[in-house]
């Protein structure tokens, strides 16, 4: 079973170099996130004002920032937090959204209509403003950024899951599952949800990227993670202001990290669908 799964993954990756590259990139990111504290050349939050704003050099290959902190170390240290934000925000909205959505799609009726209303309300919100308001209301801590990001993605997951389940709920195997003694809830969690997963994988991977960008956007208007915690979005947002003064390294390196992450997630999404879809296994 597991070897066949591995074989299948290997097959998908072999057949699609772009996906393989994205997978490698993602693996690298995860490794950096795990190893973060041990592989930073310098303490990411230790300042040394005497060497502030130095361009990339041998000692500081990504240069230093306004407080003389090593940018490379900060980028590495930020990986964990950024992946954490992205992963938790997305899994939160995915788990909650998929569950609500599929229950609605499965049951239909009044509950569905009511939840549909609530989702409509959420969808009708200018979502970025909603995220800002939430973070502003709850305080800009990491958890709240995650909640806000999760909330603004929620309606899409609900809709998506609802639609996907809706087309499947009358399929034979759903009825067969009932006949086999599964309760409605079990049908949803054991049968329907796993089946809509491949389709949602794409959405998930896209959202991983967007979650980081969303955090970056919040940082840009000052509602990001609290300083001096390193976070790509904040670093990019702050660095962007130095573009005209020629201190390009302030934005270039964190920007590259952000780009790498978003790019990997996005490209991985398509591959993920292939990996998750048993129909692609032969």
């Amino acid at each position, binding site marked *: 079973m597991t070897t066949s799964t591995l074989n299948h993954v290997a097959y998908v990756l072999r057949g699609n170099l*772009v996906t393989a590259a994205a997978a490698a990139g993602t693996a690298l990111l995860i490794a950096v996130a795990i190893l973060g504290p041990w592989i930073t050349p310098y303490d990411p939050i230790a300042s040394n004002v005497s060497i502030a704003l130095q361009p990339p050099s041998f000692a500081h290959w990504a240069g230093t920032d306004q407080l003389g902190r090593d940018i490379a170390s900060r980028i590495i240290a930020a990986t964990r937090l950024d992946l954490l934000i992205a992963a938790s925000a997305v899994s939160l909205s995915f788990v909650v959204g998929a569950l609500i959505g599929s229950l609605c799609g499965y049951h239909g009726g009044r509950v569905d209509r009511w939840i549909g*209303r*609530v989702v*409509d309300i959420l969808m009708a919100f*200018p979502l970025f*403003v909603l995220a800002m308001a939430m973070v502003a209301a709850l305080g800009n801590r990491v958890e709240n950024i995650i909640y806000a990001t999760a909330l603004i993605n929620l309606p899409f997951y609900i809709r998506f899951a609802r639609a996907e389940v809706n087309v499947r709920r009358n399929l034979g195997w759903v009825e067969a599952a009932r006949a086999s003694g599964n309760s409605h809830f079990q049908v949803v969690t054991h049968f329907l949800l796993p089946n809509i997963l491949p389709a949602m994988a794409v959405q998930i991977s896209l959202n991983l990227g967007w979650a980081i960008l969303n955090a970056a956007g919040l940082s840009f*208007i000052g509602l990001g993670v609290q300083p001096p915690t390193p976070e790509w*979005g904040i670093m990019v947002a702050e660095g962007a202001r130095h573009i005209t003064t020629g201190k390009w390294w302030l934005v270039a390196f964190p920007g590259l990290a952000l780009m790498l992450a978003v790019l990997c997630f996005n490209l991985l999404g398509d591959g993920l669908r292939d990996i998750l879809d048993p129909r692609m296994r032969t």
Partner: protein
Amino acid sequence: MTTLASISRRTGTRFVSSLPALLGVVVFTFILMRVLPGDPAVFFASGPNAGKAEIEEVRRLMGLDQPLLYQLALYLRDIATGNLGRSLTTGQPVLADIQQRLPASLELTFTALVLALTLALPLGIAAALNPGKLVDHAVRFACTLGVCVPTFVSGLLLIYAFYYLLGWAPDPTGRLDIFAQAPPRITGFLLIDSLIARDGTTGLAAASQLILPAATMALFVLAPLARMTRASMLAVLGSDFIRTADAMGLSRARVVGVYALRNAMLPVLTIAGIVFSTMLGANVLVEKVFSWPGVASYALDALLASDYAPVQGFVLLMASIFVVVNLTIDVLYGIADPRIGIE
């Protein structure tokens, strides 16, 4: 005839059924704004010597001394009479502010959407016609690059390159060169207004101001549009009726352009609608970077200042636009797809 009737009936019901959502949005925003810990009265009574009395006065002026439910009732009554309150940041009625600023946002978003679509459609089609080939990967990669960069960064980079370094773009400060004469305001859309006024110079000036921010936004939404186009083109190209068209010997151009594209456009239409409304709300950052006098940056400033009325007004506006856009898409869909309406 009957299709028209059924479309309008559908539109009607859709509209009515979206009213509760609008009400929900209003109430939710109202509560959310009150939950914000910032007290606008304190913020706005900010003269160098404002004391308790001034703060209380502002509070009374804003009606903040009343019980919450009563405030909500008043607010709902005001909305019903078309009064969205007054912004403390600008000192103007919110409705007037929005009327002033909405065309700017709409013009920017429309341009960006058109720009994005004119890029995304050919790219998506090219990718769909060569799935798994180099073109496909290149399109996917290029589009994804657009999504990787936060809009405020790409905006600043574009400004740096095209204004600061190359000097090709006019200074990125709003909708019209400061020394240019704005055309008489009719629609509020500068491009249209200058067209009406037959003022080519102004139109050109407005267009050149528009191009960078629109490109910034377009870059960001290119990916979803192109991907959707690709996916739906692929699905349609694989469907039976395309094979039929091929079997009947129709020309390639006709098969791709008429048979495939028209069918593939339906889901793209839906996505374009969603993209349009999210862009309108999410272009805060672009508006900030380009000093664009739109509604989103207006709402952002108000939000940071805990200025309730503009934020509430903005959210209501966005929600209404969302509803209208959805309705429009619905109608377009109904016209484009004869199957709709018979459920």
